[in-house]
């Protein structure tokens, strides 16, 4: 492999990972923009989505159907959580919401563990997705392309929704100023619900794709992606919709290139560097790298 191909391969690795992080980050970022809430249960909603999609896959359903099942399950889970736990707390302090989300996270992990097992699971093999896709010496699989394609499509759809529909406009108004928006007659709880529906659906997409790409799912599988998604959202500028996607890409590339190019004695500190970058970003630009377009409240 020439040095250029190595670079291109690592770039591709990082972008694929980054799009996954981005999909997860959007939900966290939007919810934060609206409620000032760090939703620690976001990753677990993702996990629940895949765990419900898994039997669908084992029953022989093709990928699109499994994807739909994952989206539906995650969306339903997200909606139920926000309806039962978060909505009654809309007027409480933000830390109350944070602890409630910790509770939900703990609950989901352990209920799923009790009902299944701690052993890793994977969806039934999907020959099409596993097929290699070669660009010169850069090796990818169709699932990688699927991740990029689906991420782009869903991000665009969300973008169009936010820009060109009335609920989208309302959401953006809410993020700007929740009190003013309320006075303008926007029904806050309904908008919060929509926000959770979008975020959870995207998490469902990410979850199913993670399942097919890595084939390694257990009841704790949602936790780390949730944390990574949040880090991505903060780097990109929490509350900002494009920021979440770009933050995801930055995080993915950062992780891959640190491991790919540093000597191991230094590379083993990977997560420390990632958080160091995060802290530096916060110190230099607390509103994130990508300023405060769209959903950031000043």
């Amino acid at each position, binding site marked *: 492999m020439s040095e250029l191909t190595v670079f291109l391969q690592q770039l591709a690795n990082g972008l694929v990972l980054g799009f996954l992080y981005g999909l997860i980050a959007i939900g966290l970022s939007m919810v*934060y923009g609206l409620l*000032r809430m*760090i939703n*620690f249960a976001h990753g677990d909603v993702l996990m629940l989505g895949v765990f419900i999609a898994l039997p669908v896959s084992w029953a022989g359903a093709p990928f699109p159907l499994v994807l739909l099942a994952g989206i539906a399950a995650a969306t339903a889970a997200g909606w139920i959580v926000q309806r039962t*736990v978060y909505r*009654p*707390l809309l007027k*409480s*302090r*933000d*830390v*109350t*919401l*944070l*602890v*409630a989300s*910790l*509770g*939900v*996270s*703990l*609950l989901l*992990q*352990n*209920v799923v*563990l*009790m009902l299944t097992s701690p052993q890793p699971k994977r969806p039934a093999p999907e020959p099409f997705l596993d097929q290699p896709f070669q660009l010169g010496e850069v090796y990818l699989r169709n699932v990688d392309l699927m991740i990029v394609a689906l991420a782009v499509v869903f991000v665009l759809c969300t973008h169009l929704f936010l820009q060109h529909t009335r609920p989208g406009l309302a959401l953006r108004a809410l993020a700007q100023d929740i009190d003013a928006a309320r006075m303008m007659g926007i029904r806050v709880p309904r908008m919060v619900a929509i926000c959770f529906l979008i975020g959870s659906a995207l998490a469902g997409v990410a979850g199913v794709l993670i399942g097919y790409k890595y084939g390694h799912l257990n009841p704790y599988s949602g*936790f780390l992606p949730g*944390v990574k998604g*949040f*880090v991505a959202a*903060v780097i990109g500028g*929490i509350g900002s919709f494009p920021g979440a996607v770009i933050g995801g890409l930055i995080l993915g590339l950062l992780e891959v290139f640190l491991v790919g190019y540093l000597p191991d004695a230094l590379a*083993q*500190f*990977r*997560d*420390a560097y*990632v*958080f*160091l970058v*995060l*802290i530096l970003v*916060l*110190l230099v630009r*607390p509103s994130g790298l990508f300023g405060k377009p769209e959903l950031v409240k000043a």
Partner: protein
Amino acid sequence: MGARSTVPFIAILLLGAALWVAETTLNAFYLQVLGLLGINIILTVSLNLAAGYGGMFSLGHPAFAAIGGYTAAILAYPVTLKASRIPGYPEWLLQMEVPFLPALLLGGLTASVVAVLVGWPVLRLRGHYLAVATLGLTVIVQVGIVNLVDYTRGALGLSGIPKHTNLWWIFGFALATIYVVYRLVHSRFGRALRAVRDDYIAAQMSGVNVARTRLIAFTVSAFFAGAAGGLLGHLLRILTPGQFSFNAVFIGVAMMILGGMGSITGSVVGAVIMTILPQFIIPFERGGTIFGAEFPALNGLTQIVIALILILVMLVRPEGLAGSREFSIRETAARFRGRRKEHGVDIVAVKGK
């Protein structure tokens, strides 16, 4: 006037008697659980000083506990084991075995020094930005402990720490923590601190040095978290990086919020619930027979019950069980007599930012 000063005195006497009874009659299992309770009280009260009273929502306190814990443990570690287990240190340190109290205090001080170094730049951030930045501190410290094997014994954990702690140490420190934090928040400094928390700009305009006030509270808070880490290491006789991970962050925050941000009483209540309650549930997890009926093993029952309690308390009492009130004999007595007079609340719960 006289009643005010005798009540704490009697309380301390009662605590002393209780500790004496506990130390002489209870077996090691209860002593360990109670020890963990005391350490959790210290951790929660110290976190509350930063987050509840100071408005600095820190997710970095496990890092301070880790730094304090490892420092104390390394200082007090038996010389016979030092050279083989943590050979990275200079010779003079390897030859040194510091007594427990100075080791503990130095652990707390080291945590404070780190708090100053980190706090100086990071405390400019507010709200969740501060939370995320301090979460970064927790991750960085943990990664450091895992990888600096020659200094910490890495992921295996620093085992073989002498068991210097008992309930006297732990609850002595807990009492000291409560006393210091109580005096601090009920002083001129405490008023300034709460003013900064409630309205940054107004506090600045009325002459409060915002940065310094926050930094002092953060540093004091880190000291006690560090001391708690030292007590923990000398109670369990081992420290591992896994003890100071995300899980520790969550449990710390949960204990504080469950009890009530800005209430020392609440911190104690939160620590009791999160430490003692699981001990009652654990026997039911493994299944067995109860009243003649067989029931299967219920893996994760404790976590599920704790999760439900967290959610329910947040739904029913979003301000936490104690809100921002403190336990007071006079008020409780008044309530018993049925006179519902106004609470002597000295802190108004404000929407935290």
